[in-house]
């Protein structure tokens, strides 16, 4: 049971958390696909792998947070969103820009 007061456990809060989870799911799905397709490009694989590690940590934190909101929720059933890619534009150029934005540590540059 959440420690938060009932009045702050709103649908808005839940929606925002779920959206964040869905975006992490979406970005992770893209990275998994991209890692599988990246072949022997070592530098790119390292950057993608770094970002993947960060996202796995973020996903775990979001899952714990959602369960704190409502223990009956199963965050794994939340689907995917591609809003995470929107700041980079649309289509293939957006993906290229996204990959270029990944630093060696895996942080996307703003």
């Amino acid at each position, binding site marked *: *049971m959440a420690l938060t007061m009932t009045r702050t456990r709103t649908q808005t809060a839940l929606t925002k958390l779920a959206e*964040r989870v869905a975006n992490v799911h979406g970005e992770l799905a893209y990275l998994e696909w991209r890692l599988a397709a990246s072949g022997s490009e070592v530098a790119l694989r390292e950057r993608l792998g770094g970002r993947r590690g960060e996202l796995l940590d*973020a996903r775990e934190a979001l899952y714990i947070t959602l369960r704190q909101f409502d223990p009956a929720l199963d965050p794994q059933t939340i689907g995917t969103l591609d809003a995470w890619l929107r700041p980079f534009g649309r289509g293939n150029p957006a993906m290229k820009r996204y990959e270029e934005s990944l630093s060696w540590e895996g942080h996307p540059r703003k």
Partner: protein
Amino acid sequence: MKWLANELAMLAGEMQKIDIEVKRLAARRTAIAEKHAALAKVAALAEVPQLPTVVPPVRAHHPYGGRGNLRNFFREALRAAYPGALDSRTIAEVAVRHFWDTFESDEQRQYFKRERVTHTLQKLVRLGEVERLHPASTNAVGGWRWKVDEPSIVDLIAMRGDLVEG
């Protein structure tokens, strides 16, 4: 010498009890700290990384895991026992086991058994959901039964009497 032995045994027992409580609380604190770290990480993802440091700690009111949980637990226990009844002692023991983690000390557990159980059962009686099977002014162990909207055997006999007279 006998007194000394008694006191030593009593103090050793107290320390043992404290050690068990400290161990349990340490495990509980670790679990809560993990959740706190996860929520702090989400705050950073939401671009408010300073949030965990600026929000003051509050003593959140969440006895028994949430509002109405204790009452609902008793409702379920008595409903499951119906048409049988449960005595106060049994209900208290079952409830203490169920809500074990919510007590911070043995004193709290004893207070719960002594006060909260009877108080909650009396509240359910006032709400008309439970019936008391013992006189209110007695020190004997009380009996409690889930109340259903059906005529009791006493009502049925009275109704039969009405029919015969009619």
